[in-house]
């Protein structure tokens, strides 16, 4: 019985971590679907979001709700700016050039944060204060419950947005066929900017949740979750929105189970091993579409 409870608790922890990965993975996946590039700097938006929240809450003493909204807005604007300055001029460039630029942006954000906030981790008390919830003998940390709820709501809103609104339809059209979408009168540039904004806003939400869980800030905190979220996006099938959600949750559960029952040091190796296996066995991911390469 104790073992069962333990396993269930680990699964819930995994679900919590996985939800954060899923939120980040959505950004990767949407951007990849629409701009056909891996936005390497996406993980660092999480870091920017976390620091922004810290600045708004601790240094400027703003109320939490205002701080959260400002953080999300700031990250969305950052996402658009990065796209305009670094990626837009490279639309027709070889993929290698775009990838290197994205790595450059990621490096830029990390080191800018390093210069501004120094490398020492800054402790930052969680803005979410919810007591541990007990269901029978299973206890769920308050923050995990909040993460699950926030992620669930964000995903429903996102799905509704993509499927029900005109802007969402434009996004789907552009990711399907850029040229044809343009002929139909869709403003491709604006749609791409919007995708970056939404992706970055989701990353900001993920950053806020992440910092509420780990309560410590450092300039490189975005790197590893970012890469893992990318693994999640690939696992679910890059370019697919439900795939990113599924991949994130699966990855979180794999990670938390391997941390608990195999080795916490090897958990990263296992997560990346999963990525390599997926790419070898089913490169299009669990829910992705097969792409046929044409000359």
């Amino acid at each position, binding site marked *: 019985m104790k073992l069962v409870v333990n396993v269930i608790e680990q699964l819930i922890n995994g679900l919590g971590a996985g939800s954060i990965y899923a939120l980040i993975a959505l950004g990767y996946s949407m951007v990849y679907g629409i701009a056909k*590039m*891996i936005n390497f700097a996406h993980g660092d938006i999480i870091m920017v979001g976390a620091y922004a929240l810290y600045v708004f809450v601790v240094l400027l003493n703003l109320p939490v709700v205002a701080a959260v909204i400002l953080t999300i807005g700031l990250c969305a604007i950052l996402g658009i700016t990065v796209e305009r300055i*670094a990626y837009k*001029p*490279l639309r*027709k*460039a*070889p*993929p*290698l*050039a*775009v*990838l*290197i*630029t994205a*790595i*450059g*942006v990621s*490096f*830029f954000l*990390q*080191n*800018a944060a*390093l*210069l501004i906030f120094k490398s020492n981790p800054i402790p930052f008390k969680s803005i979410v204060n919810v007591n541990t919830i007990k269901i029978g003998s299973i206890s769920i940390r308050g923050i995990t419950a909040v993460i699950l709820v926030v992620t669930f709501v964000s995903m429903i809103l996102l799905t509704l947005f993509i499927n029900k609104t005109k802007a969402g339809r434009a996004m789907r059209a552009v990711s399907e066929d850029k040229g044809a979408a343009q002929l139909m009168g869709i403003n491709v540039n604006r749609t791409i900017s919007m995708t970056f904004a939404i992706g970055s806003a989701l990353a900001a939400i993920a950053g806020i949740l992440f910092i509420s869980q780990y309560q410590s800030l450092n300039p490189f905190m975005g*790197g590893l979750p970012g*890469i893992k979220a*990318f*693994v999640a996006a*690939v696992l679910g099938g890059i370019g697919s929105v439900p795939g990113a959600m599924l991949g994130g949750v699966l990855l979180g559960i794999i990670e938390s189970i391997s941390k608990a029952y195999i*080795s916490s*040091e*090897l958990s*990263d*190796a296992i997560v*990346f*091993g999963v*990525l*390599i296996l997926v*790419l*070898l066995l089913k*490169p299009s991911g669990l829910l992705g579409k097969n792409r046929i*390469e044409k*000359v």
Partner: protein
Amino acid sequence: MSTNKQTKLSSNKKAISKTWIVIFKIVLIIAIYVIISSLVRFDILNRQYKALLVPIGVNIILAVSLNVVTGFLGELSLGHAGFMSIGAFTGALFTLNMDMPGTLEFIIAILLGGTIAAIFGFFIGVPALRLRGDYLAIVTLAFGEIIKAIIKFLNLPSGKDAAGNVKMVKGTMGLSGIETYADYTWVYVALVIVIVICANLIKSRHGRIITSIRDNYLAAESIGIHVSRYKILAFVIAAFFAGVAGVISGHNVPIIKPNDYDYNKSIDILVFVVLGGMGSIKGSIIAATVLTVLPEILRPIKDYRMLMYAILLIAMMLFNNSKFRAGLNENKSLAKLTGLLKFGR
């Protein structure tokens, strides 16, 4: 008749000038060595710069070897530091646990480190068969992280203690007490060998095949080239040399840690290659040298180094793909001016 004679003459001339070029290169190689060693012998360089000689050499080897994959094969590798790490730890484990005469031990360590790294290079080359571009870059990145995690997890035998028992050290702590064999002579010899092999490989049939895969892999495949075989070849060669660089760099400092060879180190190497010009060995050598020395000269702004790298990377890519650059390319004389910034395609 006469034309026949002429072509014979001119081909003779060509052969002669080729020999002269080779002789010139050999003289240049020796001359550079003499200059470096006299700079060291007569204490013209201060300690700070002497300590830079080995890192410069190591970085050149790394940049040239990464150039084989990124510049010539056209695949981005973000796990180059992983191969270096394998080399460094293999080499250090070997010299720590063996009792051989120094020189022999170090030579074997270098070859062993390179070989083990090359074996891993083969394993990373296998997923490369199915993947290209973005996905492959991510796999190499994942690979580097896996290597780091595994080394951290392992218990490593690091020599014997006073009582003669083998000391086991947790990988996270890194290896310490490594004999610092590597000096500028070792690095220089290794560096010359690596450059000569890479430069000749590129000029050879195999090298041309590798660049043809970069330029259009579908076309290469359609004329019967084993794309996968050559992809693996490029990865194995690059991994071997990165392993060699790892062994040398590991024997330059008394302590190595898995975290020394992380993602950031891979990006460092990538910056050398991109800045020097993808597909240009000369460029890699110059960029690696300049970017290793520069932070030492510019100590006061050392904190800004990484930020500058990031801006350089972005600016370089934007410049290379701008209309301005395309205009320069049309004007051949100006294209020569930007030779250092060559993008390779």
